């Protein structure tokens, strides 16, 4: 202590208060830095934040839809891989039809985020008090679609870090949110909620409920997930951007069932609902099955800002047709199918029995919902329900990389991703 006292005395003696003052200043440093840019949670409980919360829920759902829909399209051969395995490509595993739990982290994460944010966002709005009922309805609507995406595409459910549950948990939650959206919303938004609910009920096998909801939706109704070509990759229509020539050319209609069927440069009289373009180029790289593949890009979406339909009147007609098939009214189902084909300017489909009618429906539903992220779920439930009728051979696994669809296998739902398995103590593996 004497040592320190002597030093202090010397310093004071010489008037050397400068260091003391500096030390004092430094000690009083203000560490409370608030950086701009990111929003702290407390601000989300303000009324003014509600619109951005709702749009955020929508955007989260759109990103999930983007990834799940594109990969599902590859597995079901709505598109065939023709190139890049990188950023916008179809991985070697997906080319073979395999949905390995190590390769689907992004799909899982985005879908879970959309689901969680839908629920959490609604809770925040409810806690604050909704500024407008329509905003709350929209939040419920996007949340409903987020749950529908999960229910149609993922094998088992996981909610908020708990253990795995039945897939039906997603359906039930989707219906609850669509119910809220339908009752709080109005106009097209309410109609979208009813149409979304019809699809979920169909998936659950509640055909009466599905038809009841579907019947109120006119043929021309369309509710879309918005995409934008001006805000970066996350909000671009991924299926479109992956195949446009800048630079990926990642998928093609070559080797799909649409190659000979659809309207194209080779077949102007083909079905205009599934158009593609014939080019003399090949995909941006060779793929495992077939080397360099002719690049015949789909033309349903021609711009990365094109929206993806989530619910449509035509889909409702297909629900009604399928309900008829389930109840044995296959002629009535064919009438429904052909009404749509007639409206599209395509020749009528024929069937001489229920099984052929089921084949026609499976084909037609693929056309109606082409590249809308629905095909994987359809395949799953038709397999689950052991429905009659056939899918096109180019939609089925051929067991070999080198023939037919080039699908070695065909996984019909996304497993729990490795990221969830690794972090959630209640989950023991890809199936829960």
């Amino acid at each position, binding site marked *: 202590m004497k040592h320190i006292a002597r030093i202090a005395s010397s310093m004071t003696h010489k008037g050397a208060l400068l260091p003391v003052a500096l030390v004092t200043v430094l000690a009083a*440093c203000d560490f409370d830095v608030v950086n701009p840019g*990111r*929003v702290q949670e407390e601000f989300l409980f303000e009324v003014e934040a509600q619109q951005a919360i709702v749009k955020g829920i929508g955007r989260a759902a*759109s990103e999930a839809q983007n990834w799940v829909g594109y990969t599902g399209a590859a597995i079901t051969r709505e598109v065939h891989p023709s190139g890049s395995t990188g950023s916008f490509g179809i991985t070697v595993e997906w080319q073979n039809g395999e949905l390995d739990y190590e390769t689907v982290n992004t799909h899982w994460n985005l879908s879970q985020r959309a689901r969680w944010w839908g629920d959490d966002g609604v809770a925040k709005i409810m806690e604050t008090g909704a500024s407008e009922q329509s905003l709350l309805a929209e939040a419920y609507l996007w949340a409903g679609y987020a749950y529908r995406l999960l229910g149609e595409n993922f094998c088992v459910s996981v909610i908020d870090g708990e253990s795995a549950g039945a897939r039906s948990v997603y359906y039930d939650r989707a219906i609850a949110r669509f119910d809220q959206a339908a009752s709080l919303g109005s106009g097209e938004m309410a109609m979208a909620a009813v149409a979304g609910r019809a699809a979920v009920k169909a998936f659950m096998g509640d055909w009466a409920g599905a038809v009841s909801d579907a019947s109120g939706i006119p043929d021309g109704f369309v509710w879309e997930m*918005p995409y934008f070509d001006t805000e970066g990759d996350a*909000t671009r229509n991924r299926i479109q951007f992956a195949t446009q020539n800048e630079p990926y050319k990642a998928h093609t209609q070559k080797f799909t069932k649409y190659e000979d069927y659809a309207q194209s440069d080779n077949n102007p009289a083909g079905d205009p609902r599934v158009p593609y373009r014939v080019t003399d180029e090949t995909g941006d790289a060779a793929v495992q099955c077939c080397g*360099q593949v002719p690049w015949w890009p789909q033309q349903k979406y021609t711009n990365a800002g094109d929206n993806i339909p989530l619910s449509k009147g035509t889909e409702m007609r297909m629900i009604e047709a399928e309900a008829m098939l389930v109840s044995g009214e296959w002629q009535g189902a064919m009438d429904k199918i052909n009404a749509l084909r007639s409206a599209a300017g395509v020749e009528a489909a024929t069937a001489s029995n229920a099984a052929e009618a089921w084949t026609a429906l499976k084909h037609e539903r693929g056309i109606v919902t082409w590249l809308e992220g629905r095909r994987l779920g359809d395949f799953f439930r038709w397999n689950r329900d052991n429905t009659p009728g056939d899918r096109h051979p180019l939609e089925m696994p051929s067991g070999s990389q080198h023939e037919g669809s080039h699908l070695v296998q065909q996984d019909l739902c996304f497993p729990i991703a490795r990221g969830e398995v*690794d972090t959630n103590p209640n989950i023991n593996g890809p199936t829960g």
Partner: protein
Amino acid sequence: MVNRLLESVRSRGSGAAFAGAALLAFALAVPAVAHAQDGTVTGSVTDAASQRPVGSVQVHLVGTGLGTLSRDNGRFIILNVPPGDYTLRAERIGFTAVEAQITVGAGGTVQQDFNLSAQALGLDEIVVTGTAGAARRREVGNSVSQLNIEEEVVAPPQNVDALLQGRVPGMSVTQSSASVGGGAMIRLRGNVSMTQSNQPLIYVDGVRVRSSGFAKNVPPIGYSGRSNNDVSSPLNSISPQDIERVEVIKGAAATTLYGTEASAGVIQIFTKRGSVGEATWTGQINQGLARNLTFGPDPSLRPPSENPTSLSGGRSDFLFINPWLRGHKPKCDDAIVVADQPCDSGLFSDMGAHQQNYALSVGGGAENIRYFVSGAFESDDGVLPNDHEDKLILRGNFTFSPREDLQLQWNTSYTNDQLAHTAGGNNAHGMTLNTFRRDRNYLNDESFNAINPFLNQEITTQIDHLITGLTATYSPMANFSNRLSIGYDLAQQDNRNLRPFGFIRAPTGILATSRYEFNTLTFDYVGSMDVELPSGIRSALSFGGQSVTTRSEVTTAYGDNFPGPGDPDVDNAGNTLGFEDRTRVVNAGLFVESKFDFSNKYFLIAGVRVDGNSAFGADFGFQAYPKVSGSYIISDEDFWNEGWGSMKLRAAWGQAGRAPGAFDAVRTFGAAGWGGVPAFLPSNVGNPEVGPETTTELEAGFEGSFVDDRLALDFTYFTQNTAQALFSVRQIPSLGFTSSQLANVGELANSGMELGLTYSIIRNDTWTWDIGSTLSLHDSEIISLGGSPSFSIGGFGWVVEGHPAPVIRSDCVTNPDAHADPIIEDDCYHGPNQATTIAGMHTTFQLPGGITIAARAEYQGGAFMSNGPQAAATRRSVRWAGCFEAYNTWETQGYAALTAEERARCDLQFYQSDFSIQPADFFKIRELSFQAPLPEAWASMAGASRANVTISGRNFFRWVDPLMRTLDPEVGGNVGFNTRVRSMTEHVPPPAFYTFALQVVF
């Protein structure tokens, strides 16, 4: 005369000329200020071995406070010396101090020359870095590496990275690509953090300088690789010619006083200062070439089905890019060369990328003011066709002593760096990727005319970098001093990235311009008081504080869909977007340190620093970092035989930290757009308890000189433990936040040893031959993940308990040598990503006539990294050059002759990117140089006191592990050296450099 000169220039109205003349006038005028009434001591200092002049030698009259530094020509002058008898002492790092007795008469001048001999161990050398105020080497308990540039560096390096490469035990300096101006990753004793930067802190003359790389030049949306995919280093804003010495301290035991952010070590650069006396001018001209060594398989290994060259004339040993590579173009008479294709027409037409550097400096001063002013201009082509760098560096260092007890030092440098780059790395719009992938590139065409349009992408960067610092040293009493430093590091970066209208992969054009500003404001105060304690113990108490405020701001304008050709700006675009990001981090700390000196033989230093940081969580508070070290000059003991040499034993223990990122503590939602309306997305979970990770280090070792000062040994053993390590704790995705959250949950350890050895095999008046080596062995291990799951940090780098930090993990083939299909095992652990063995070798010959020949080589081993270009090519069915040997076997001997490893790596049916992991061992000759003085008569014809020429080659010989069949371990990823895991993307490796230099001293 001076006034006339200034007036003459002013009348011509040229500002630049006036500034230059003012500088000249200043240089001429300052010595005239000297007093004339007392005596003068003057003389010169030369190296006893080479007879070359030695600059920056401290020459002083012992016990008087009078002294100076010798200038670059070895001359010194001490003015205003009262008449009397004195001991004149000359000392400098790396040389044995020499004394002479002199008598100064009234108004007289004493001439005293010195011949200094190299000294293996300088116990009384002054060390600054890591100590509170200066300390003698004998007092310091931790390892400090000092590079005395003038003595140890023969050939002029291209930049500071090259200067440091292969010189310091425990330091790894690795480049990332051939991109001109690209910076290097620097690691001291490996990685101490798995989530934060492991690049050491950089100080220049006491001013904290940004150590992370500058920003990559890439548009803010779209794939993040539409770039040259390398970054510049702030370290290279310093001209190597301006550097006097470099001090490196490597671990927490030494860096405690730097507190939070210092656990990865500190590099401090000291630039030159003027000496009392007339101005000494030094001019230097460097002319050189950069050329690549081959980085692919010899064309003779190609399988029968392969053409010997690509359609553009590329060869497999350059992965087919040589038609665009300066120095390796095909001969013009080659039939494959198409119209307008650049080619090699014969002698000197395609020797390589031209490098040129011109430097001029002047230093001098009077008793109370000294100056060093320099300028350097560098104009370098890169080996890739669009690559070019023009760099201007200006420096002014001024030392002013208005009173006996006050010294002001103002050091300022300004660098203007203008860079143009070729799109490279993993970039589908880039030259390198599309060339490496041959006819299965994004054009399905490997011809020259198909690929050449990729050069139309313009990637230009301008960096203006100002580093300025003012240090006031006030010593009101002989035993009490105060030093206050204010430092400001300001870098402004202007990036422009244009794919013009009509660009081959973006036909309607894309333009992004970004303006970055990085600045660091430092306030640093140190007070030191020497106190004589009872029993002859001397003590020095130091105390102080430091505040470092770091800001980073960027504004970016983006546009695409241009209406037509032309030279656009963003507002010509059909779509325009704007982006902005600003962060500010404040770190401040106080410290106290006490040093005890027992008989000038035993030393003990103890201290503590306490830090706060704006990135710490609200619940965290402050962090204390204690330290203690001791040194023991055993050779000063009575029992020590003087003939044994001298030796110091040392040990140090201390802590330092790394702060979390600016946003890690708080739960945030990202403000994103969705079709023009605002949208919130979950972003960061937040952790109010997050604080710094704390690295504790214990190091012990010895330094000694033996065998008549011919053998120098420096040995250090160290062990580090990073507790509360910041690990990226993966969140449960079903809880909504999908990004990882930093938490202080982990623990990792490093340990190793470093050995430095130099030996003078021959040392006499005409010859010296020195050899030396350094050896660093290093191991790391993740001790604990704190219950959180293992996590990836990219590039197959994983953080897994019980494995190196990080470990390279991938699926692997368990029967690699079998002639069978591969048996594949999940999650194999290959080894660390950082080298575990670094060995350096160097030798210097000094021959009669002042000729010097020096060589330096480096080996790094034990690391593994992913060869990304191989993986990306193979999965796209590209005929990858690295598989030529396997294809050859396949085609000539049949599939059955392929091993399982070859099948996994080269046959697409077994493809996994996991099979791209390769050992990254390499050996390179970092430098071979020859230096000779020009005859004095030639020098005097130009009015110079001396001149010399140097011819050197750098990195012109390389050995790599045979399993790395393509590229080079010094090829990095898409973010340059700002990466935690070294992995390769589609870059051209760093080239070799061949330089001729002429230096003239006036």
